[in-house]
């Protein structure tokens, strides 16, 4: 009665209906698998408490001219420097042709707020934190591998390939910036 167990016994059944059922079941299973897989992967993404700190506000009013502070943004150190007029002039005087990673001082600051320099404080070489007000160009010097940055945080000498990175930020008022 049931000597043959292979699917071939069902061959006399309408093939299209059978195929449709199998394909539909398989498709629904695939959709279900994908729907389960996504949350299992997505849980690796930054969680809500991390994302809540992705954008921070920082009040500049406590920083005197010639001072800089290091704050934390997205787990990274960020330099905020209130530059002196001499530093600004020095940065503006450098011709682009002398730069390894050509960028004007204006491109690295916000119009009307040229004294403020906001940069991620990791050397673009291998990530050390450079030392401020030092180096051959009066800016920053990275002691790890000897990269020199100028007063606009641009790379001038040493192994680092790029200028110190300016994070996305904007002025909410004259003394309040929002980073991120």
């Amino acid at each position, binding site marked *: *009665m*049931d*000597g043959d*167990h292979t*699917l071939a016994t069902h061959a006399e059944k309408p093939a299209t209906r059978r195929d449709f059922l199998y394909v539909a079941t398989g498709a629904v299973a695939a959709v279900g698998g994908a729907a389960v897989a996504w*949350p*299992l992967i*997505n*849980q*690796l*993404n930054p*969680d*809500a*408490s*991390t994302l809540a700190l992705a954008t921070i506000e920082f009040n500049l009013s406590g920083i005197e001219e010639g001072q800089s502070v290091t704050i934390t943004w997205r787990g990274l150190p960020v330099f905020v420097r209130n530059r002196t007029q001499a530093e600004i002039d020095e940065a503006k005087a450098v011709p682009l042709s002398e730069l390894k990673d050509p960028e004007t001082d204006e491109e690295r600051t916000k119009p009307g707020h040229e004294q403020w320099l906001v940069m991620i404080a990791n050397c673009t070489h291998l990530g050390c934190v450079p030392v401020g007000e030092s180096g051959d160009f009066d800016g920053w010097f990275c002691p790890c591998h000897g990269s020199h940055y100028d007063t606009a945080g641009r790379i001038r000498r040493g192994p680092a390939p790029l200028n110190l990175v300016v994070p996305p930020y904007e002025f909410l008022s004259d003394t309040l910036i929002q980073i991120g």
Partner: protein
Amino acid sequence: MSEHSTYKPANGVEKWIDDRLPIIRFSKEHLMDFPTPKNLNYWWTFGAILAMCLGIQIVTGIILAMHYTPNVAMAFDSVEHIRRNVNGGRVIQAVHAVGASMFFAAVYIHIFRGLYFGSYKAPREILWIIGVFIFILMMATAFMGYVLPWGQMSFWGATVITNIFSAIPIVGDPILQLLRGGFAVDNPTLNRFFSLHYLLPFVIAALVVLHIWALHVPGNNNPIGVEVKSSRDTVPFHPYYTMKDAFAMVVFLIPFAWFVFFAPDILGHPDNYIQANSQVTPTHIVPEWYLLPFYTILRAIDFNVLFIDSKLGGVIAMGGALLILLVLPWLDRSPVRSGNFRPMFRWFYWLFVLNFIVLTYLGAQPAEGIYVLVAKFCVAYYFLYFIVILPVLSRIEVPKPLPASISESVLGKAHA
């Protein structure tokens, strides 16, 4: 087993692989062509359901471990962090917590199916024994997992259960300190429980491989308990049982999802939402429901037996209740496997099931008054079933006539 093999390497590459690591051949023999009795009922789908449960627990557990902090100061808050902040964390955590209950629900069904259909009898003793070890490891894993959220029930459950070891004469206290890594349950305990809770599921997975290996030597038992006689009695595992098992898994996921999404905390205890506090004990310490029958057995021994005091007696009884399963194949000597053909056995079996449910109920009740007395009767029946009833039934019971084969049985059913 190789006699079932119909595998012919389809091309040169497969042949090259087959000569070196015959993994395709192995998969085909064991996952696809494996001859399986064609009369298995839905109780037999719980093996596959359990494999799925283990997979779910391991996957969700690895994820939770990515966000959890095994430190007494932070454990409680880190579990809440998972629920509140991690993407999809509320559901992933609930799947793991509800999953433990569903896992045990399935394993109890699986065990009671084996008890009814005599699946522990020759030649499947080793298969059964491996299963008992898996069950014991599951309980240990679940217990340590319940400690990790570091709520009040976590802490006091850990305190009470580790204290079991202090009942051992002479070496009890040193063992207790060794287990806890201190004089009381504290940060070292939490840390090592986390480590072991992560490790043991992989040990379980290894035992599951052995369990399936031991299954594939004699092949499946079946509802009539008559061994496979010819290929007419079997169907290949795939697609017949892959699809039947898959259907059962999906159905099993429906109540699972109900709890996860609509009542994720109903299987837990509200006290575990209170952070652990070594100064205050909850009014009633209640283990998770799946440990209750054994908890009742532990508590039921409140009297000394000869030189064994009640505390040690309780521990021996609880351990014995599990270990006696290991020798079950030699206690039940009836040549008939399936309870369907054992008229007397059936009564005692269902009484045993009822008794087990009552043991579960009693575990959640305070140890006072009538509950203590009933617990003693239930514990007595639990042991009598194995030590006296099954051996005696083997001798006196007259089984019903068995069908000659599975084919005859299913044909008879079809014509009835």
